[in-house]
């Protein structure tokens, strides 16, 4: 394949865009701006034509696997179908071209949508307040932990300890550290559940927050959830729910009902916002009433007017931690989530979770015979198999199987996460895949486990490149074409 960079196509004098003539009296920039501040020449962008740019990037695009082209069972990422009506909605100028600093009365449609999203997210989480500001799940974690810190400070308690299960997403301890807390790891069991002994050993009156992912990252509903929450609450701590796995429980159980005081959502996972090759996402958070005053602002409030139509206004929570970013939030992602939720309604959202869980259990049932699943016979929306037996017997690793799957036209599951499962192979099919696809995937997986190990070590064989040298990349980073 052609491996030229866009810079390699550059030729002086080429140009992909022609700007309008200036229709006002014009002066030399050097007469308007201090010469010392002016550049001698504009930056060395490539000089290429529109046809070159388009062909270059269209060809690049085809080197990607994506949900629209392939089954993409990347565990913990909920790679469900991204509905096209959501994209059409996001492109409407009445949403895409609204400015954050417009007067309130000129954006009532936008504010109504955002208000409804707050209400919907509160209802789904069973919590009392919502801020739509955070830009991604990890950003939501940070924002919520900052809320917790502000709360404790406000009530005069010095609490620094944040408990994090060892199978949590790495963002949890990282967010805790950024928020000024001390992250303390709690062990988990084979089924991903919290090791109660270790939990008790680490739980004390200095606890600020217990960050839990439930269903956990092994795809199991935490069996001690109620107990954990009660004990943390009894010690004056708060429960933070990592909402990455909400796709399993929509309308079935609610974090607020099982003890969470705070949670974030990943609308790009649960509510079908596209993943964009790595973003944008969004990370709205919901919290209990006592934490509401500390939320990042503004939030949208509804004001009854005399007339039929309500008036929507932006309000800063009373004791807000402030802003965690500029402007309101990742509105474009929230709009897609809103379109998705409105497409499904109450019954539809429940069916999403039911089918996500059904698909995962079906795949588990098909796979467990040749790829052991330590967590047992059942799962929620995803499960974690292990390749350690194959590794011991034939030297085949989780990475080998992942790479070989690419040859067969399947994106690989998540591998080596969670760290608590050896040779972890974490599969999340999502509800938008068909039984036929799951059958084909399971058959292929089986076939791969029967293949010559050497074939697997060298896989993939059919892709444009195979196994980048990551050590060299990290040791001598080449991060730009200078």
């Amino acid at each position, binding site marked *: 394949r052609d491996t030229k960079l866009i810079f390699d196509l550059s030729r002086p004098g080429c140009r992909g865009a022609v700007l309008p003539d200036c229709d006002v009296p014009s002066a030399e920039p050097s007469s308007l701006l201090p010469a010392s501040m002016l550049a001698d020449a504009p930056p060395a962008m490539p000089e290429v034509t529109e046809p070159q740019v388009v062909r270059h990037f269209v060809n690049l695009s085809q080197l990607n696997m994506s949900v629209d082209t392939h089954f993409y069972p990347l565990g913990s990422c909920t790679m469900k179908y991204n509905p096209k009506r959501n994209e059409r909605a996001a492109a409407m100028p009445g949403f895409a071209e609204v400015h954050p600093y417009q007067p309130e*009365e000129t954006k009532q449609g936008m504010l109504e949508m955002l208000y409804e999203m707050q209400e919907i997210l509160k209802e789904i989480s069973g919590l009392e307040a919502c801020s739509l500001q955070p830009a991604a799940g990890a950003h939501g974690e940070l924002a919520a932990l900052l809320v917790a810190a502000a709360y404790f400070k406000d009530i005069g308690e010095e609490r620094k300890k944040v408990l994090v299960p060892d199978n949590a997403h790495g963002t949890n301890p990282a967010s805790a550290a950024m928020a000024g807390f001390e992250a303390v790891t709690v062990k988990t069991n084979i089924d991903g559940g919290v090791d109660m002994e270790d939990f008790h050993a680490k739980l004390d009156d200095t606890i600020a927050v217990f960050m839990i992912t439930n269903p956990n990252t092994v795809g199991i509903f935490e069996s001690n959830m*109620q107990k954990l929450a009660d004990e943390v609450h009894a010690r004056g701590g708060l429960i933070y729910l990592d909402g990455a796995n909400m796709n399993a429980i929509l*309308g079935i159980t609610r974090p607020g009902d099982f003890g969470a005081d705070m949670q974030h959502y990943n609308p790009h996972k649960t509510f079908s916002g596209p993943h964009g090759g790595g973003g944008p996402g969004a990370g709205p958070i919901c919290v209990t009433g006592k934490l509401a005053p500390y939320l990042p602002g503004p939030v949208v409030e509804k004001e009854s007017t005399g007339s039929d139509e309500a008036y929507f206004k932006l309000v800063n929570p009373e004791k807000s931690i402030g802003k965690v970013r500029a402007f309101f939030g990742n509105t474009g992602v929230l709009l897609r989530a809103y379109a998705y939720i409105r497409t499904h309604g109450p019954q539809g959202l429940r069916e999403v979770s039911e089918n996500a869980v059904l698909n995962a259990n079906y795949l588990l049932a098909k796979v467990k015979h040749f790829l052991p699943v330590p967590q047992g016979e059942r799962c929620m929306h995803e499960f974690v198999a292990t390749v350690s037996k194959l590794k011991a017997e034939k030297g085949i690793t989780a990475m080998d199987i992942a790479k070989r799957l690419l040859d067969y036209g399947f994106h690989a599951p998540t591998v080596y996460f969670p760290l608590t499962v050896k040779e972890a192979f974490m599969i999340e099919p999502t509800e938008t895949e068909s039984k036929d696809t799951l059958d084909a995937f399971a058959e292929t997986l089986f076939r791969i486990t029967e293949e010559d190990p050497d074939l697997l070590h060298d896989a993939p064989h059919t892709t444009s490149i195979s196994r*980048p040298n990551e050590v060299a990349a990290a040791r001598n980073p080449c991060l730009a074409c200078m």
Partner: protein
Amino acid sequence: MPYLYNTPEDQAEMLSAIGAESIDELFKSIPDELRLNRPLDIPRALGELDLEQHLRELAGRNLHASNAVSFLGGGSYDHFVPAAVDTIGSRSEFYTSYTPYQAEVAQGNLQAMFEYQSLITRLTGLDVSNSSLYDGGSATAEAVLMAVDSTRRSGRVVMAESVHPEYRQTVTTYLANLGVEVVTVGTPEGTVDVAELTAEVNDQTACVVLEHPNFFGALEDAETIAQVAHDAGALMIGVFDPISLGLLKRPGDWGADIAVAEGQSLGTPISYGGPVLGILACTDKLIRRLPGRVVGETTDRRGNPCYTLTMQTREQHIRREKSTSNVCTNQALFALRATVYLSLVGPGGLRDVANLCLQKSRYLADQLDSTSRFELVFNAPTFKEFVVRDKEGAVEALVADAAKEGYLAGIPLGGWYPNLADCMLVCVTEKRTKAQMDALVEVLQTGAAKAAADELIQAGI
């Protein structure tokens, strides 16, 4: 449901393979007392046509850059987005893929990100760029954390008051529990007084944060200020407007160690301020402190050049609480759009866009200044935004009235700067025409030129 495939027959077959009686049985690990035993109280389902009509109704109640004439900026800009940017940004293979964990089937994303990083280093004059952050505000906060971390100075951070107020708020929020003092140097004249700033920079100062052109649109004496920072052993963080670099010296050239920006101007829609694009670049020395994803060039098993995520030991999924940041999902799709945008406009186009912003904003500034009602507030040279004072002191009402006429006239500044309560920030991009500017001047003076506005809007002028 249009996105669900399993028919009742499929479900029965699958349950049988699982060995379960019912779907409900699959949820038996959730105790009954924790179940929601009622339907969610959310609105009913809508088919696609109903949904579209509903969303059009909502969208129809917003003014926006196509049905109004907008002079709003303040970090979110109505720059022109070439159609080819949309073509690429809406490719399924880009927007429905995720973080390139499997490099073999993500070379498209990886190479595009590598090109993005390359463009940003060329744009900023710095050595390295990550592959994006959330937005300009959080990027500024991340830069400050980098500085605190790398200088090992957690005493203070010095920010100019002329930095975007929401960026400053974000920095303050991020630092709330880290024991770092945030010192804000006032800018009553619209730009930093170097002597005042120098007085605040001490040997415990991790960094100085300056926006240039600043929030008021004014140019700062960035080079001198960078020298002040460096003299004190602090890092210089420069917040920049990517479009301005068509004309202005690059942050790396005037002395910034870390340059951050809101990248929305580079081909991303305004979208009520999000999602947008956080840009962050820095010097080589800071490379191991970079937050977020980074793509590197390497070779594959067969010796072919290729791209991969790299330096992951900085990151949270490996380093957990010791990572440089918690950033995981970033804004790859908008980094891609910026890459396409910059490739299309090239150096000449970027200069033209910058120059049109400069010339046109100067025209409008002069026109407003020459009226009896308005005056320019600051003397410093400006790039594409400027602050005007309403001598009648009714800026909020003026903006509201202009909106009724179809003009988004400016951003009242009183909420952030009480001393500028009678002022607004006005922005002019290359999309605004002389006719629109003349009409705005008229509307702001008379408060009644609705007919003219309607005509212009309809005419798309």
